[in-house]
């Protein structure tokens, strides 16, 4: 942690989502705020921000795109310039209506359930390949030996990047994602390397169009106009940033739960048809993603005097565990039948990759449970969770037996 993040003393008026305790175990923090007199916490850090914890508040804010802008969805000390709206740096996630609709619409067909279905067999084959490489070892790191690799390979395949480049490509991506704490110059270097790689791939696709997502984006039109090199490059960067550490986190958190809850693991091994239901419950209880919004004009929100340019975090994982929203919200009920969770957000920004992410998560669990039906946590103290807005295990030592 850097010096501008002193440890949090009072979560109600000085919260910080990068605090180590928040990364390790945010649930009691959300519970405390949610059940206090004011269920929306405040901090003066980051130039002023709010943290709602009730499902009703999180959904009301997600739906109110007039007062809560997506101009930036990642909270930091720096706010992107007002002129960035309504497109933002990475459409559609950073866009507001009316620009948002078109930028989102171009992406959706590539991520429809039908399109995603075609990727299932190759995803399963790749999971099996990763598993074969782990066989014979006693303890593996399920985060880096398994979970992390899956979304990287899937998106690289969709984009039509050379599979021989897999390792290089993963290094770029991980450097960019993990490098968020590095000084700006080092960060520019890793972004620069990724950018150069993407430029070469896009140029190659421009010269030799083929049947893949990169060519699809290069041909796509909004209102009769092609997207252009810049928009395509930014969208691909978004797909990498939005699709990789999120899915990696969801696969890892699910394996963490099953490794530390033998009853649930045994049940899924015995009843594999329950996996899709379990996937929804694991997504609910370990929802990896918290988004941010910027307040557009002064507003009194349920008694909170929100000011223009204040940040508001949308902790979908806290909303999913609100006892007013769901009975036994704090428990993982692997066969839960009523589960209106919002792990993929609510309203117009509903995760465009949700069908892909679900397929990856289900297939990754099915392949793992087939191969290692009796896995357990090798070292509970060796598990490390990422902090910030995407939460998942970054180190996950599992004994595969």
């Amino acid at each position, binding site marked *: 942690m850097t010096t501008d993040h002193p440890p949090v003393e009072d979560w109600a008026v000085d919260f910080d989502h990068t605090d180590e305790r928040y990364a390790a175990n945010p649930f009691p923090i959300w519970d405390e705020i949610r059940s206090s007199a004011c269920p929306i916490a405040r901090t003066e850090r980051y130039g002023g921000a709010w943290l709602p914890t009730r499902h009703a508040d999180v959904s009301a804010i997600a739906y109110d795109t007039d007062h809560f802008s997506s101009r930036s969805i990642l909270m930091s000390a720096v706010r992107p310039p007002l002129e960035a709206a309504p497109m933002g740096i990475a459409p559609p996630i950073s866009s507001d209506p009316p620009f948002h609709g078109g930028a989102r*619409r171009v992406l959706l067909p590539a991520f429809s359930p039908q399109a995603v279905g075609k990727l299932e067999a190759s995803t399963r084959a790749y999971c099996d390949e990763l598993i074969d490489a782990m066989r014979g070892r006693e303890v593996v790191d399920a985060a880096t030996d398994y979970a992390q690799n899956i979304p990287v390979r899937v998106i690289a395949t969709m984009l039509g990047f050379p599979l021989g480049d897999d390792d290089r490509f993963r290094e770029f991506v991980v450097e960019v994602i993990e490098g968020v704490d590095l000084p700006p110059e080092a960060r520019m270097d890793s972004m620069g390397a990724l950018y150069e790689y993407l430029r070469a791939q896009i140029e190659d696709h421009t010269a030799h169009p083929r049947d893949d997502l990169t060519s699809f984006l290069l041909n796509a039109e909004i209102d009769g106009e092609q997207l252009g090199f810049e928009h395509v490059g930014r969208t691909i960067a978004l797909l990498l940033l939005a699709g990789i550490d999120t899915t990696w986190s969801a696969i890892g958190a699910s394996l963490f739960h099953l490794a530390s809850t033998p009853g649930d693991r045994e049940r899924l091994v015995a009843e594999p048809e329950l996996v899709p239901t379990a996937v929804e419950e694991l997504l609910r209880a370990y929802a990896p993603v918290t988004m941010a919004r910027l307040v557009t004009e002064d507003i009194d929100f349920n008694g909170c005097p929100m000011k223009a340019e204040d940040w508001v975090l949308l902790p979908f994982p806290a909303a999913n565990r609100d006892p007013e929203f769901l009975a036994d919200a704090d428990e993982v009920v692997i066969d839960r039948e*009523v*589960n209106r*969770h919002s792990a993929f957000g609510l*309203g*117009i920004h509903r995760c465009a990759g949700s069908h892909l992410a679900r397929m990856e998560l289900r297939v990754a669990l099915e392949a793992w449970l087939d191969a290692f039906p009796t896995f357990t946590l090798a070292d509970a103290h060796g598990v490390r969770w990422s902090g910030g807005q995407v939460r998942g295990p970054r180190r996950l030592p599992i004994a595969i037996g």
Partner: protein
Amino acid sequence: MISLRVKIDEASCEGHGRCYALAPALFEPDEIGNASVLGDGIVPAGEEDRARRAVANCPEHAIAIDAST
């Protein structure tokens, strides 16, 4: 005879896809992943539980279920 009928509010549906995963005999995805009701939305015998589960799991509260005569 009274049977159930499901209906989707197109303005609220955001394509989470819970309904067509839970009740594929009642709902199907369009090319962007939003849901439409199959046929006239009348729930055939034996599909009532799946219909109710779809309604109860839609994150956007976009599915209505009514008795239809």
